[in-house]
């Protein structure tokens, strides 16, 4: 057993981080909020050139992939990176960045779709089947004020005609596997987001002074930061453990660890997001300071591939052995 990043994984992490720091600094990303096109097509293509979407095609495993996606989460890269990654297993255009593949997640009687105006198609997981729905088949109505300005949303008419002979990408175990990958990569982004929100708040706590000293010297503040760090670290471990399970590098089957990761990382991201705002005081409530962006994206990610409550319930169901009541 060696539950530690390998040198290769550290290399990958550093490479992607350097790329993102140069190409996706948060000021630049945030400036796109005003453009109406939050996904920068050039940037998207460069992500593909970095190999972000084609990691599995290029011989990397899920452990490498969660390391990479943690960095995407940290940088708040806008756009459906997870579903484009999943689609890349089937579509060259997703792998090479010429197509952007979104995610249809029906819930109750309605569906709220992200990036409806920029995607070429969307994945739909339904009934043990993974389908690819072309954007032309999805009728959307844009919602004017998205929670996260970097995740524009529209409503979707739920009655989409699916043509199984054309639209099906995978069924059964393969579809199940793809779904678990999506859950886990989302969790990896939540870990990166948590760590980034912590870094921002930690810097602020060291520099902002009140009562003649840095606010980070007050326990009421520093304890919040300690809690953020604890949640982020624990979540990272859960994500890495689930990645090992999906790669077969663990004695545990993957279903439970994947739900564990999404539960813990989802809670961590929401906690770090809101606490980061609190540490910034009034500045935290401004549009300008990035603290708010972390919390908003945390809400978006929590609602993707099943929220923390959903996965916590799934974990609970593994605790007991009994027949479901009818």
């Amino acid at each position, binding site marked *: 057993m060696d539950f530690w990043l390998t040198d290769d994984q550290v290399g990958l992490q550093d490479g992607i981080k350097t790329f993102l720091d140069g190409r996706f600094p948060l000021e630049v990303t945030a400036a796109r909020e005003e453009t109406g096109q939050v996904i920068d097509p050039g940037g998207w293509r460069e992500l593909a050139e970095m190999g972000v979407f084609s990691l599995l095609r290029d011989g990397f495993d899920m452990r490498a992939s969660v390391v990479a996606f943690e960095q995407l989460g940290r940088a708040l890269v806008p756009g459906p990176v997870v579903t484009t990654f999943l689609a890349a297993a089937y579509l060259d255009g997703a792998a090479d960045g010429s197509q952007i593949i979104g995610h249809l997640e029906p819930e109750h009687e309605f569906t709220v779709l992200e990036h409806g105006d920029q995607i070429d198609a969307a994945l739909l997981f339904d009934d043990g089947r993974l389908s690819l729905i072309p954007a032309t088949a999805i009728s959307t109505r844009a919602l004017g004020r998205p929670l996260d300005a970097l995740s524009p949303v529209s409503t979707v008419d739920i009655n989409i005609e699916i043509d199984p002979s054309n639209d099906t990408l995978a069924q059964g175990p393969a579809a199940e596997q793809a779904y678990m990958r999506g859950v886990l990569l989302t969790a990896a982004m939540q870990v990166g987001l948590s760590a980034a929100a912590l870094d921002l708040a930690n810097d602020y706590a060291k520099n902002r002074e009140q009562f003649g000293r840095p606010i980070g010297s007050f326990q009421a503040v520093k304890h919040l930061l300690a809690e953020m760090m604890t949640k982020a670290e624990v979540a990272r471990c859960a994500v*890495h453990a689930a990645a090992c*399970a999906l790669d077969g590098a663990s004695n545990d089957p993957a279903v439970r660890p994947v739900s564990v990761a999404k539960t813990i990382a989802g809670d961590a991201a929401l906690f770090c997001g809101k606490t980061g705002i609190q540490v910034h005081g009034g500045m935290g409530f401004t549009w300008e300071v990035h603290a708010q962006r972390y919390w908003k994206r945390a809400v978006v990610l929590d609602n993707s591939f099943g929220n923390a409550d959903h996965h916590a319930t799934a974990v609970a169901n593994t605790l*007991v052995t009994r027949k479901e*009541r009818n």
Partner: protein
Amino acid sequence: MDLRYTDEEQDFRHQLRAWLETVLRDVGPEPDRHDWPARRAYDTSWQRQLFEAGYAGINWPAEFGGRGATPTEHLIFLEETERSGAPYVGMNFVGLLHAGPTLIVEADDTQKDAHLAPILKGDHIWCQGFSEPNAGSDLASLSCRAFRDGDDYVITGQKIWTSFAHVADYCEMLVRTDTDVPKHQGISWLIMDMQSPGIDIRPLRTMEGSAEFCEMFLDEVRVPASNRVGDENDGWRVAMTTLSFERGTAFVSEMLQTMELCRELAQLATTITSKAATAWDDVGLRRDLGRVSAELDALWALTKRNISEATRTGLVGAGGSVFKLAYTDLRHRLGDIALHLLGRASLSIDDVGELATGAHIQGRIHGLSMTIAAGTTQVQKNIISERLLGLPKEPSMTRAKHT
């Protein structure tokens, strides 16, 4: 990153498992909590058995009588002993996990010869005389005084919360040997024979109802200067060796037990019925317990990361404090879920009727000590924020002179 165990590690596990299966047949049930002679006999004879089979001091270096196992084998050992229901380390805790490891790093050869083997064999029980009435979280302000008199130190003062003091043979003592220097600099670490004249021990009843810890009153207790470990006034540094040990693997058995408790609580919920539904039909309960269960898995992963770090660097880094903070907080939440679920059955520590409720209430009570002992939650948060996140200390926490 690989969670699979190597063939050697699996061989170690299977041998250990086979051994446990044979010996555990002859280990009797745990004695009553209040029967101290029986508890001592139970804990020490298990330690003796471990020693004879070569499992004592699993992570101690072989040159000091330990097994010299790798951190991963240590983890497997804790996992298998817990899984098989073997006795817990019990009152050998301080000797095996604090005093012994400190002696290995800091003691001279005579001291090592005198003390290490008896700890491994279960012949000597140790206790930890660190905390005082006025020195808890602020341990370095301790004032139990030791004066040099010829070849001896003469100790007068008071210690408190000393677990197992009334059954211990030796005590790792922190005493003040200089009052004219900053508080961290005037402390020495001594081996104190608990049979020495002048030690008055008064057991304190804990809220669990039994006497797990004691007050110790020391009146001119003589300890040979040759029992000092490390230099005079260098005891704080020596003590820190011990405390970093405590935050390493000390909670692994506990945590595995908690995982079991969590599964049992879920199972219990399926049998508690009201009208047509069981408690487990309540999705709120399932979410809450699912979260705790998920977090336990995540903490198990964190433990493995800590172990892997220790294998690579020889040290448990940031993960130790993070683990302590998260795990002890989780114990409170799990305990509260149990109280809510069990309702009026929470009013009894004995099982109520057919339902195995008692362990959950006992566990709820015990959880209350966990955010206090071995550094409170607030102190852990100070450590994480100051040492790991680099935040400034509070002005009042700077190194004042001892008064």
